[in-house]
């Protein structure tokens, strides 16, 4: 059976309410519960905030762990700091973005610290400071010595790693990285380029 474009659209529109999947309904319900928890937490309800913590700790901790170079102790501290800061700043959450997005942004600010500090991190000299080996330093590295992706990530200079994690893992755009960290968009692009180049050299 062939339908014209208009007829097909009509059928689609007619079926739209019935086409909501259980997954979509569950997601909507979860979003409503989360919004209620956020409201309650703004009012000072620690139990509601604990539910928000349980729902988001995995992603927040994962982000902290990567930005802290895989250091579990630092990541623990950073994740705790991020949730405490979130509790303190909850009243400033306007609900314009998803709570998770807001929490992620706040976590990045907590982990990377003051913008000035980050600017220092993202200079091109930090690779030498951190002692990360240049690809050319390992021309004879055997296959067994090559790092896997996770290990390679931890060996990146701080600034390059931060930009790579935010851009390629968290899906941020350069302008968002620049706004959140205080570095220039061009610096963010340059750091991403550098990070990818280093990673690919180490992994091949």
């Amino acid at each position: 059976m062939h339908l014209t474009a208009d007829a097909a659209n009509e059928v689609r529109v007619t079926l739209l309410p019935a086409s909501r999947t259980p997954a979509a309904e569950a997601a909507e319900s979860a979003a409503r519960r989360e919004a209620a928890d956020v409201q309650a937490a703004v009012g000072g309800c620690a139990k509601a905030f604990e539910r928000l913590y349980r729902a988001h700790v995995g992603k927040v901790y994962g982000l902290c762990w990567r930005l802290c170079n895989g250091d579990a102790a630092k990541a623990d501290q950073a994740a705790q700091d991020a949730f405490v800061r979130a509790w303190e700043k909850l009243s400033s959450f306007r609900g314009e973005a998803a709570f998770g997005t807001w929490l992620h942004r706040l976590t990045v600010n907590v982990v990377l610290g003051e913008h000035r500090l980050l600017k220092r991190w993202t200079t091109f000299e930090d690779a030498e400071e951190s002692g990360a080996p240049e690809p050319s330093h390992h021309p004879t590295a055997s296959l067994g010595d090559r790092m896997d992706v996770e290990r390679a990530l931890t060996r990146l200079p701080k600034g390059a790693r931060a930009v790579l994690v935010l851009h390629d893992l968290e899906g941020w755009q350069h302008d968002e990285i620049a706004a959140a960290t205080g570095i220039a968009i061009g610096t963010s692009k340059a750091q991403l380029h550098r990070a990818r180049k280093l990673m690919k050299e180490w992994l091949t």
Partner: protein
Amino acid sequence: MNAQQQEAPVPGLETLARERQPHLDLWAGIEARIQKPVAHRRHNSVWPYGLAASLSVAVLAGVLLRDYSPVDPQASPAPAEIEVSTLPTPYSNHDGEARGSALLSARTRRTLRSESLDDAPAMVAQRADAEGLMKATYSSGNPAPHGQQAILRAHLRLVSQAEREVRRALRVDPESASLKRLLDVAQQRREQLTALLVHEPD
């Protein structure tokens, strides 16, 4: 490796898990740390009103002080006057008029110190005139002297603003006795100033 290859995402990076669970439950530590901020946050929500109330007190005090000071267009306030006005004065025996009297006597003392003693009788007469003006204006409800309307309107605006701030603060803390007292004072002052302006239409 060419430029295009370098711009592509690192192979395998997308397979890394974004989520990772901490080895220990961090909630206990977080809960312990957010106990204080609860109280702190409550203060945060009230502090603008507290500040507004304090500002209102300051404004009212300023209005009252200005109301009871004699209006003398010739005498412009000087920093030295403020300094001298804090000195103890023999004229201030009771609270209400004491502030005006203290300011006046401080002016007198400053003038007596800095000018010739021959001016002393004139200063005493000026003080008596000013006290008479004060009583005529605020005690007996007589019309404000001509030319004071602008000052009265400015005072009225200040008092009305203060009253609004106090009302706002009372919405947050309805049981506060000090705020209620402050509101009474603000209302009285507003009514008094309004009556004075009614007597002296444009």
